[in-house]
């Protein structure tokens, strides 16, 4: 079926994107923060339209895209992230000159829509194109402060390495296509299920190339090196965008690809995810200890988080639908917790940095005295990252690790717990700056912009809510994860129209 109605929410998002770009073009004197509020409004409409797609029977677009609860989950996530980041940017960009704000907000929306398509793609070409749309938007957004040397440098590094890794990814896709004779996920699963071993070398190498490509996207070590530089150079709200939306999109793609297309050949890749997970979490957390810049710290700490999440992907490969379902819902709920936490952290950081002008950790000195609320939000987010009880990160990480543990992977879960212990160390260093030291300048209390205050407060409540009552978040995640593992019917319907 060529059912173009499946993309109505994305039409809304992209329509608003075009609208803000046009507004900037034709009404250049318009107050710029109106564009941000328009974007946020668009995100709300997009979210509302997305809600209408929940709880529906899966519907396929020509076997290329499927609209099910998994897709709907990421659509809602994308709309939420764009909403928060747009409002954050409204405050942040007030202090920046020479930024094309219409394009900025437009690209946020386009990137968000690309994430939905990545989550719903059931065919390699579609997934690849959606991935590139997202990447292109991010390349531009990272470099949007074009007169800022670091922003420009970050986007250069990002696009060069991104192009390199997407070439590797494509070579992997071509090998898999050659081996399976099709690019549809369901077709690949079928082809790999009963294939003879003559195809093994191509499949083995192809999958590893694909792994490198998606590993780059989610910044798994050793494909992570772009991330700290891009995070540092990007404008603050875009750093938040990178560490939430870009990662979530990468995992959306990985989850559907590996749980539906490659699941019949898990032997080829399960070990690799375990190895990447171990390396990634260790590298991320150890290097994070040495950081002095806030954004780099977040970059390395989020690399550590990716390490934990990759354990769940490895667990997809145990061939058991129940294990896969547990691992996936654990991963999704942790993504939600991680995203809420990251956005809370960045809302507070945006407000703090707009006052101090410093993105160094030492710039937060004495924040507890000058702005106790922000210090509280930052502390809560860092505790949540570290996985302390009562904060979102504890509950969600616990579910994720439990879901991902199998008898063979106990060792890596132990490593993960040990790593989150290491991570507490550098989070405490930040907290120490805020609470134990006196402010650098005069210790005058300052006011937080109402929008950022509101965002931070709501997200803080979110952290606490998920931390103390994770039931709803988990149920939602499980609902989203189910379609991947009830694929018998969905895959069959997709196969009929498989190209």
């Amino acid at each position: 079926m060529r059912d173009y109605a499946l993309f109505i929410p994305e039409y809304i998002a992209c329509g608003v994107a075009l609208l803000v770009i046009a507004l900037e073009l034709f009404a250049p004197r318009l107050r710029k923060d109106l564009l941000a509020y328009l974007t946020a409004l668009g995100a709300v409409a997009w979210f509302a339209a997305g809600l209408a797609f929940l709880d529906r029977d899966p519907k396929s677009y020509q076997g290329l895209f499927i609209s099910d609860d998994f897709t709907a989950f990421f659509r809602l996530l994308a709309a939420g992230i764009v909403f928060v980041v747009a409002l954050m940017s409204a405050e942040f960009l007030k202090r920046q000159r020479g930024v094309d704000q219409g394009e900025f907000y437009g690209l946020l929306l386009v990137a968000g829509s690309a994430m939905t398509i990545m989550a719903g793609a059931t065919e390699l070409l579609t997934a690849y194109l959606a991935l590139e749309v997202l990447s292109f938007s991010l390349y531009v957004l990272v470099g949007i402060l074009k007169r800022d040397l670091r922003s420009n440098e970050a986007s250069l590094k990002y696009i060069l390495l991104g192009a390199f890794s997407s070439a590797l990814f494509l070579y992997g896709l071509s090998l898999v296509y050659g081996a399976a004779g099709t690019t549809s996920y369901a077709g690949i699963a079928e082809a790999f299920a009963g294939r003879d071993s003559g195809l093994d070398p191509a499949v083995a190498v192809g999958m590893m190339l694909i792994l490198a490509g998606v590993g780059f996207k989610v910044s798994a070590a050793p494909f992570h090196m772009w991330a700290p530089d891009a995070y540092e150079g990007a404008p603050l709200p875009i750093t938040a965008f990178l560490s939430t939306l870009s990662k979530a999109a990468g995992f959306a793609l990985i989850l559907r690809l590996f749980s539906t297309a490659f699941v019949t050949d898990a032997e080829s890749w399960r070990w690799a995810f375990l190895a990447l997970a171990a390396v990634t979490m260790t590298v991320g957390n150890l290097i994070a200890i040495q950081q002095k810049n806030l954004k780099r710290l977040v970059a390395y700490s989020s690399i550590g988080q990716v390490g934990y999440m990759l354990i769940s992907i490895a667990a997809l490969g145990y061939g058991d639908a129940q294990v896969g379902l547990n691992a996936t819902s654990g991963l999704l709920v942790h993504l939600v917790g991680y995203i809420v936490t990251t956005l809370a952290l960045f809302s507070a950081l945006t407000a703090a940095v707009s006052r101090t002008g410093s993105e160094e950790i030492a710039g937060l000195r004495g924040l507890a005295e000058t702005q106790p609320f922000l210090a509280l939000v930052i502390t809560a987010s860092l505790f949540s990252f570290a996985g302390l009880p009562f904060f979102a990160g504890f509950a969600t990480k616990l579910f994720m690790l439990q879901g991902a543990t199998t008898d063979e992977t106990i060792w890596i879960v132990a490593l993960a717990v040990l790593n989150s212990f290491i991570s507490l160390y550098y989070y405490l260093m930040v907290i120490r700056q805020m609470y134990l030291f006196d402010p650098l300048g005069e210790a005058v209390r300052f006011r937080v912009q109402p929008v950022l205050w509101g965002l931070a407060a709501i997200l803080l409540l979110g952290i606490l809510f998920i931390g103390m009552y994770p039931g709803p978040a988990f149920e939602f995640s499980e609902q989203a994860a189910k379609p991947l593992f009830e694929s018998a019917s969905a895959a069959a319907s997709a196969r009929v129209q498989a190209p």
Partner: protein
Amino acid sequence: MVPLENYLALSAIVFALGVYGVLARRNAVMILMSVELMLNAVNINFVAFAAYLDPGRIVGAIFAVFIITVAAAEVGLALAIVIRLFRNRATANVDEAATMKW
């Protein structure tokens, strides 16, 4: 006739040359040219599979069309960023754009 393996071997070699270029060059434009080589190698693969493999016809060719499109767009965007780098720092060498580290 020329067997499929010949095409694949050709593609592998061109791809590896592209990888070498990306790793060895220090001029951003030359790195991009190397990436183009890699993408071309991928295209050889896709088209060869499309022409040689029985069930999986045509899709590979369509894939190649889209790769060409993406590659063109990618070059355009990347060159814009390189030009911006050149304006900011009067260089196109990636190892001189290295203020962010550690």
